[in-house]
């Protein structure tokens, strides 16, 4: 049963990496959209696309945390106590990001919009980076079993952890660009869609190069993981991810609008699956921390695993149709909040005086 729970957890990580990652990535594009005037239209599109679904996206993170502490409590305690700094950074970043996003729609002046927008965009970078370092620390065997046994700073400020953090940001930006192509096309904003296509190709290139660079870095810094990713199921996942990534880029280049979302999701999902396979049978693999914890040893009580898995299965009966309905309504454009007039704001500001 613990393997079912682990699979569910990794599935949650995948959904969070894809949907939450796209969410964070949208913040990256918001940051780099340009000046208040030139970037206004793009920012409007980003906000309209994110509006209805961003809360639902971030519930994945809570899902992952909860399954983790219920199904693998000693892993959770060891990991959280050793990695409390990046987790705390992520936590504070999520607060600020959520607040900034919810409030940005009420901004009446360009300066207000700018301040909130900057908060939103910066936290969109910091949170995935911090969470990426957490993944990197675990995967490279730098977390020890116990209550904050590992050194607080080196556990996440080391080449491999930092690398995974940067990769996470890049993947998020890439996924976001892919999603936003489809979203802007749906809104009838062809010029913005083309802009996102260019960005998707650039981000895809960067992400691809980073992924390849990962191999030598993992070889030296995370040997157990490297061995896992270059053999068996881990290797299969890496290949699937690479193929899906190439397929995505090919479709984007050819102007396909909606299907790249799926292949981008598969590419990211394959990476998280690969991580799981490569690290097995460990939750805390061999590495510099010299402390391992197998999945079996970390697993919580069987009765709880059964109840949890059963509860999730039961909830899916309601969840899946509801989520499908939400996505359907969103994609059909039936649920968009009113567009905030960033262009009008910028124009009004230029004419000297705040827009009311």
């Amino acid at each position, binding site marked *: 049963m613990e393997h079912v729970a682990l699979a569910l957890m990794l599935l949650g990580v995948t959904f969070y990496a894809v949907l939450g990652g796209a969410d964070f990535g949208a913040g990256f594009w918001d940051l780099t959209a340009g000046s208040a005037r030139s970037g206004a239209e793009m920012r409007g599109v980003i906000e309209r696309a994110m509006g*209805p679904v961003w*809360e*639902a996206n*971030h*519930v994945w993170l*809570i*899902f992952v*945390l*909860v*399954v983790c*502490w*219920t*199904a693998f*409590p*000693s892993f*959770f*305690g*060891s990991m*959280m*106590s*050793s990695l*409390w*700094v990046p*987790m*705390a950074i*992520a*936590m*504070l970043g*999520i*607060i*600020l990001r*959520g*607040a900034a996003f*919810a*409030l940005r729609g*009420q901004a*009446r002046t360009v300066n207000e919009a700018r301040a909130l927008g900057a908060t939103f965009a910066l936290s969109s970078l910091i949170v995935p980076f911090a969470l990426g370092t957490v993944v990197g620390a675990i995967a490279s065997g730098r977390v020890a*079993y*116990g*209550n*904050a046994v590992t050194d*607080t700073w080196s556990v996440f400020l080391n080449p491999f952890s930092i690398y995974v953090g940067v990769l996470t940001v890049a993947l998020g930006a890439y996924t976001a660009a892919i999603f936003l192509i489809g979203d802007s096309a749906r809104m009838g904003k062809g010029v913005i869609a083309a802009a996102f296509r260019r960005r998707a190709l650039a981000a895809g290139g960067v992400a691809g190069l980073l992924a390849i660079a990962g191999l030598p870095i993992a070889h030296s810094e995370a040997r157990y993981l490297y061995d896992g990713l270059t053999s068996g199921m881990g290797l299969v996942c890496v290949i699937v991810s690479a193929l899906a990534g190439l397929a995505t880029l090919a479709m984007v280049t050819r102007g396909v609008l909606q299907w790249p979302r799926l292949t981008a999701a598969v590419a990211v999902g394959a990476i998280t699956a690969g991580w799981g396979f490569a690290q097995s049978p460990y939750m805390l693999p061999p590495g510099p921390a010299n402390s391992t914890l197998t999945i079996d040893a970390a697993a*919580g*009580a069987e*009765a*709880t*695993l059964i*109840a*949890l898995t059963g*509860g999730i299965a039961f*909830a899916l009966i*309601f*969840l899946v149709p*509801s989520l499908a*309905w*939400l996505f359907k*309504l969103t994609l059909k454009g*039936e*649920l968009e*909040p009113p567009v905030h007039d960033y262009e009008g704001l910028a124009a009004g500001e230029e004419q000297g005086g705040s827009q009311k």
Partner: protein
Amino acid sequence: MLSHLISLAPLAELSQTTGKLGGGTTDQLTWARQLQALSLIIHIPLVCFGIAFPAIVLFMEGLYLRTGDLLYKRIAKRWSKVIILFFAIGVVTGTILSFEFGILWPNFMATFGDVFGLAFGLEGLAFFIEGIFVAIYVYGWERLPKKVHFLSGVPMAIAGIFGATMIISVNGWMNNPVGFDVVQGVIVDINPWRALFNDYFWHEVAHMYLAGYMVAGFLTASVYAVAWLKGERSRYVRTAMIVPLAFAALAAPVQVIVGDWAGREVAKIQPVKLAAMEGLGTTTKGAPFTVGGYYSHSDNRVKGGVEIPKLLSLLAFHDPNATVEGLDSVAPVDRPGPVNTVRYSFHVMVAIGTLLALLGAWLIGTWWRRRRLPGSKWFYRAVAVSGVLAVIALEAGWIVTEVGRQPWIAYDVMRVSDAVTHAGGIGWLLLAAVVVYACLISMAVWLLRRLAADPEHLKEDEVSTIAGGEA
């Protein structure tokens, strides 16, 4: 020699544990406690809105669907903005709590995560569903067919209540840890369903459910009562005040009864907490209830208060001659340290709860006999402050139960001092959190004032209705 061999450890210690990851390093304990308390204090009023506000808004929309009167629709639409704002802030502050459980209390999570985790799992799923339907409900006002829109709010309401219920179940478990055994410090024989439906579950859920309606109802009504007192006497303001007020007014008197029930359960299962609530130093038959004064640790009794004879025994056991256990029934290290904090919070909660029950009775009584609101300006003044008072009572009540639970994180089983992280630097995290919360609160206040200043009831598309003579 023989006496050493045959002396047994006190029974209580056999069923305690220092946890899977080992306990004992406590230099971060103060920071961790304050950070956790701060986060809970900020989150809990939002929980009240999650429990009660969707039902109140749906009621308003139901009035619109039944009468076709656009006024109800306008109010419901406006309140929808509050639903999504508070849900978003609730999700964010709730996420912080999930992180904090791991960052601050890793040994508690490692030791008991699989005992109480099921409730959190169900809660997470409930909030997921709630998030979906909040989005559909709030963003689908003009887009979905009327009946579909209304029905989409129902899962939102149910999921909000269910999710909150699951969390309260966990708190109940912390106060009444069941569903497992402790064998030589190791947790075995785990039964997650027993843990979920612990003996505290029912009264805690009932108490918080009503509290949700009181906070959401009185707070919403108070906003419009203030407008009323400032001279805005439109039907809009009246309606927007009466509907939430009705919910709160019905809940408040019932809460007194539920509170009594809760108190009696605490007397039975957590006698030391009850002793702290009263400041009762020694076990007493026919114990008095002391109002005011302060509890002196050195003398182990309350000084300077007004004693009402037999009242504590009467409240705690419905028997004026019942024996109530005092703080000294356990060793000092097993008692909550801040007894006065628990005492005064209890006083505040009961005082405000009683006042709000009287306010509710005033409204219900007047409506029953005269089919209208009370005419007195004092009524509106009372409603105007009732919101803030309800929040204060809410926080005071949670302080009673959580500070009264100390020094235990799992009552009589694991201490907070064994649960806390061994990592350093938590003080800095507290500081960072204070700064971030301050930003968050000022943003929220700023936004609410923006919403309030927006002349919603003079919107262009409803000019014709206004011309029809309602504003």
